[in-house]
């Protein structure tokens, strides 16, 4: 099972990451340098970094598995993600960037505190607790996928796979900081894009061609080609489709993605980055779903649909490409984990240690603690990954939805509604998060598995707006929002 070619490709990839870590290290000696690369990143880097952070191992293993399991019903995920990303870059990114530059914010809690004049740091504490709990779970899920990937491709033990993946990520993230994270995300995003565009181009002809694949799927089960899948136009079918679309909502306000907008060099990078990000996600998602559909014909009867990509890479490509596919799966994992670790570390060191307890500590000392925190959180995630269940898809979605439900409704209200208040933001954030978690634990099964993002978002918006209507917004928040709108100008018209 061990192949010299595969191992060589893997070692070359890991060495490149180590070099990127060393190169990024020049920027990581300050708090702003370590957590947002000094706000100097260009469009290509923020676009690919945003997408490869948002698209974890779930894209390669989970979404190809979805294409395999449900066929064209998975097109709803494409619709949701492409819409989510295009709306985020078009409507959210520029006002958010403008606000964070004005406030000199380098984290999302920084922004919320400044936006709502939260002198008591309540929003900051709530954000940090939510970020830490979700990020550790999310990172653990990704490390789980790392163990699974090494097992599928190289036959290594699950434990060894978890440790190898975590060690490399922790090295380049702590040494290189956000700059290394973002540029490694660019490399990883390009690899993922190339893989997912190439895979169906090779797999569909290998399965006999487009019409043969569709014909075979139709012969097996006509529902595999219908948008509403085996449900048909029924309540469970509609709920399933809406849930699939809902996955893309998180792109509008998840903190690990908003950080990319903060780190952009200027507004021009966001204008260019939006288009790049949309092209990128189309390649990612269409490629993954079509690959899964072709994979069902090539490898019928797989016990775990999430193993379809490793199966295809091993059977359809020469050994060197099998190595490349292992690298791409690792890239998807690493590009998410590194960003989450930096996010969690910034939550502890920037948001709490610096802003609440030790504002006078030196930049160098704080960045050292940032690196130390990264390692500690990484170690916690390793322990969780070794102890937890190995089902990637829903575990990742839960952490993904928890972060999104807590932050997105509040961030969107704060950007677009002058009347949003500090109390509204606090209640909305807690309410969105708690609803998401309780939905999964108590209600999901009884409501046709309705995806928790939807009730979480609904609760977040209702509570933020409802409480804001009965409380007072910061006195100058309205004029401040007008100034931000003037600075960014209209969305679709040239000034």
């Amino acid at each position: 099972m061990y192949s010299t070619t595969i191992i060589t490709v893997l070692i070359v990839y890991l060495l490149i990451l180590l070099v990127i870590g060393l190169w990024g290290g020049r920027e990581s000696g300050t708090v702003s340098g370590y957590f947002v690369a000094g706000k100097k990143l260009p469009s290509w880097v923020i676009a690919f970094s945003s997408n490869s952070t948002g698209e974890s191992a779930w894209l390669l293993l989970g979404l190809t598995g979805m294409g395999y399991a449900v066929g064209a019903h998975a097109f709803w995920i494409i619709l949701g993600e492409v819409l989510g990303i295009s709306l985020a870059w078009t409507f959210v990114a520029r006002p958010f960037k403008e606000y964070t530059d004005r406030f000199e914010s380098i984290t999302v809690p920084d922004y919320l505190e400044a936006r709502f004049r939260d002198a008591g740091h309540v929003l900051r504490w709530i954000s940090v607790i939510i970020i830490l709990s979700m990020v550790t779970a999310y990172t653990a899920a990704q490390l789980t996928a790392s163990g699974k990937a090494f097992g599928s491709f190289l036959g290594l033990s699950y434990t060894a796979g978890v440790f190898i993946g975590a060690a490399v990520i922790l090295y380049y993230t702590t040494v290189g900081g956000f700059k290394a994270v973002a540029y490694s995300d660019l490399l990883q995003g390009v690899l993922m894009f190339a893989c997912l565009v190439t895979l169906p181009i090779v797999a569909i002809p290998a399965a006999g061609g487009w019409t043969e694949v569709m014909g075979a799927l139709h012969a097996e089960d006509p529902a595999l080609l219908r948008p509403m899948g085996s449900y048909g136009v029924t309540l469970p079918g509609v709920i399933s489709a809406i849930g699939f679309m809902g996955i893309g909502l998180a792109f509008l306000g998840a903190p690990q993605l908003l950080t990319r907008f903060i780190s952009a060099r200027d507004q021009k990078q966001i204008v260019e980055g939006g288009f790049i990000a949309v092209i990128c996600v189309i390649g990612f998602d269409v490629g993954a779903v079509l690959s899964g559909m072709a994979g069902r014909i090539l490898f019928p009867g797989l016990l775990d649909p999430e193993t379809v990509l490793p199966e295809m890479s091993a059977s359809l490509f020469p050994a060197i490409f099998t190595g490349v596919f292992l690298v791409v799966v690792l890239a998807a994992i690493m590009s998410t984990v590194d960003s989450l670790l930096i996010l969690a570390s910034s939550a502890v060191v920037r948001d709490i240690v610096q802003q609440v307890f030790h504002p006078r500590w030196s930049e160098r000392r704080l960045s050292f603690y940032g690196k130390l925190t990264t390692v500690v959180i990484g170690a916690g995630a390793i322990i969780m990954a070794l102890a937890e269940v190995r089902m990637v898809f829903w575990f990742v979605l839960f952490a993904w939805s928890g972060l999104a439900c807590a932050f997105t409704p509040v961030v969107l209200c704060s950007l677009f509604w002058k009347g949003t208040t500090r109390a509204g933001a606090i209640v909305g954030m807690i309410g969105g998060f708690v609803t998401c978690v309780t939905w999964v634990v108590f209600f999901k099964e009884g409501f046709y598995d309705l995806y928790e993002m939807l009730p979480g978002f609904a609760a977040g918006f209702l509570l933020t707006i409802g409480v804001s209507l009965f409380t007072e917004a910061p006195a100058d928040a309205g004029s401040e929002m007008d100034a931000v709108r003037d600075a960014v100008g209209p969305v679709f018209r040239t000034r």
Partner: protein
Amino acid sequence: MILGLPWTSWVLLFVGVGLGLGISLRFYWAHRGDR
């Protein structure tokens, strides 16, 4: 059926891809000269 896939599935696929591309292209075009 168009190329073996029901037309409803093609519509779903093209709505997703087309809307995203349309929105982001329109946005890029409006701000291409911004600094």
